[in-house]
């Protein structure tokens, strides 16, 4: 299925059903490729439904070749909770979101879906700013980071970034919470392992599962793709460490 589109970059634009609007050097598509690989490998194509919100993440709903919906900005977890409860445990429900979608405007639905222990999986692609709208301050913008709405760099007036994976790990309804990056082949494989675990937690009916993926945003960061990867390693990972923050087989 998706492999036809994503197996090699020349085929990316040839086979996609809509224009690809991911910018050169953006890792959003790589993150989505992991999901598509896993859907194939786990044999869940027929039961998987993706729910996207608004932002660069919206593209995901158009690109995947399984059922997908697009909700209001920030609201995939609301819609996904409803879909899962109506269709039942056989359905694998994935919300695909950016950091602004999941944890600025979407704080309420994401937090409450996690607290309710909804059997859904949220993938939050964190690029530290609002990509689609031109690089404004996000809840995940790190201290000192220049954005179009923190032109002097994030400081005390804007407050402090939210470490979403750690925060959600504190909630009882959460079965799994982790953060990965795509800065190296090793990190790519590790992130894929995290995502597989997250999906498996849902399939096993344990509870809510969450994966944050650090991702580049070269045009808005004003960096080349390679420098963007270096920036993640040097600046973002110290603020947002990689790893699993919660991994349980039973909600207690």
């Amino acid at each position, binding site marked *: 299925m998706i492999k036809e589109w994503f197996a090699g970059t020349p085929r990316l634009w040839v086979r996609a059903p809509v224009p690809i609007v991911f910018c050169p050097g953006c890792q959003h598509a790589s993150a989505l490729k992991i999901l598509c690989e896993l859907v194939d490998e786990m044999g869940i194509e027929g*039961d998987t439904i993706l729910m996207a919100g608004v932002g660069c993440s919206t593209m995901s709903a158009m690109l995947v070749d399984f059922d997908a919906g697009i909700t*209001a900005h920030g609201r995939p977890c609301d819609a996904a909770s409803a879909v899962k409860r109506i269709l039942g445990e056989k359905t694998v429900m994935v919300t695909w979101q950016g950091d602004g979608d999941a944890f600025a405007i979407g704080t309420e639905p994401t937090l409450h879906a996690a607290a309710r222990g909804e059997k859904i999986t949220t993938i939050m692609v964190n690029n530290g700013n609002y990509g689609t709208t031109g690089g404004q301050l996000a809840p995940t913008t790190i201290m000192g980071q220049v954005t179009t709405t923190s032109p002097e760099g994030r400081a005390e007036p804007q407050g402090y970034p939210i470490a979403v994976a750690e925060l959600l790990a504190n909630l009882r309804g959460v079965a799994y919470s982790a953060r990965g990056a795509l800065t190296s082949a090793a990190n790519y494989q590790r992130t894929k392992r995290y995502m597989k675990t997250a999906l498996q937690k849902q399939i096993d009916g344990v509870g809510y599962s969450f994966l944050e993926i650090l991702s580049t945003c070269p045009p808005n960061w004003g960096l080349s793709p390679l420098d963007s990867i270096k920036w993640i390693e040097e600046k973002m990972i110290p603020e947002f460490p990689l790893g699993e923050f919660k991994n349980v087989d039973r909600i207690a």
Partner: protein
Amino acid sequence: MGERILVQGNEAIGRGALAADCRAFFGYPITPQNEVIEWFAREFPKHGRVFLQSASETGSINMLTGGAMTGVRAMTSTSSPGWALMQEGLSNLTTAELPCVIVEVQRGWNTTRHSQTTYKSATTGGGFGDYRTIVLAPDSVQELHDLLQLAFYLADKYRNPVVMLSDAILGQMMEILELKTLDFGPLPEKDWALKGKAAHKDGKKRFTPIAYGMIPTQRHPTLISFLESYKNKIKEMEKEVRYATDQLEDAELILVAFGYVARVCQEAMLRSRAKGFKVGMIRPITLWPFPTQIIKEKAATEADFLVVEDNLGQMVDDVRVAVEGRAQPHLLSCLARHLPGEEGAIYPEAVVEKIENLLKERGK
């Protein structure tokens, strides 16, 4: 005849939802519709249906969006401040062409009591889009139950959300309800619904974006093709006009009212008739589409109109448009309530007095 029970208006909504085979309810507590969500919380799980309490009315409407995407019948209910919060979601439901039902148990201003202040936002599309929704206005416990079933039918027929406008008084009052399942005829299959590819006959992906037009799809390749199709949908929905009339034949003054105020006007009309005043009544059951034609026809008979509504004057604008300058639409608004506090309501006495003054004036 179906089973007859004594029941509160807010509960009749739940009974109607069961009869309509509604499968999912999403809601958030707000006075005066708390009995609605409490009924669903109590009864829906017993019937193997989904009840989910949201974290806000914004949450309710977006859960409803997800629920509607699966193709099952789903609904929410709220009261006016919550209704305001739902407007973005309602706009999205129309552009996503998702059928569902929203019940608005109106309260007034920042009080927790009754009003009819949602008329404009419900009938003109209160959100950000260029959309319309059919708005049903029951005036009894029985109609809350029956029109809710009609609401689901119309939603499915047009792939568009339908709004039912109740109010605090209808919601709280108790009347005899005859339980019955209404059959409105066949409906198209929901082949577009999200269920997972394995469940689709053709094995192909289904896609339900909230932004048809922005994203090219098979159904709507361009924005203009979406807008043309939506315009046609509005035209079709405009044919769903429903209204009730009473004693119009010789009427010199015609009352126009909906919801609880229609019950008040019914009483006022009978009292005035008993005194020999020639009063009739038109009660819009659909607030959108508005029963323009009947009002236009009656305006040609030189009857005058008295619009009675528990707000500062909203429906009166639609009556003004309908009469096309042929008659004078008068207004009796919330300012005629019997008490100045939030507990005040429009009583028959105020309507009778206005009727008599207008007809005496007319006789001169």
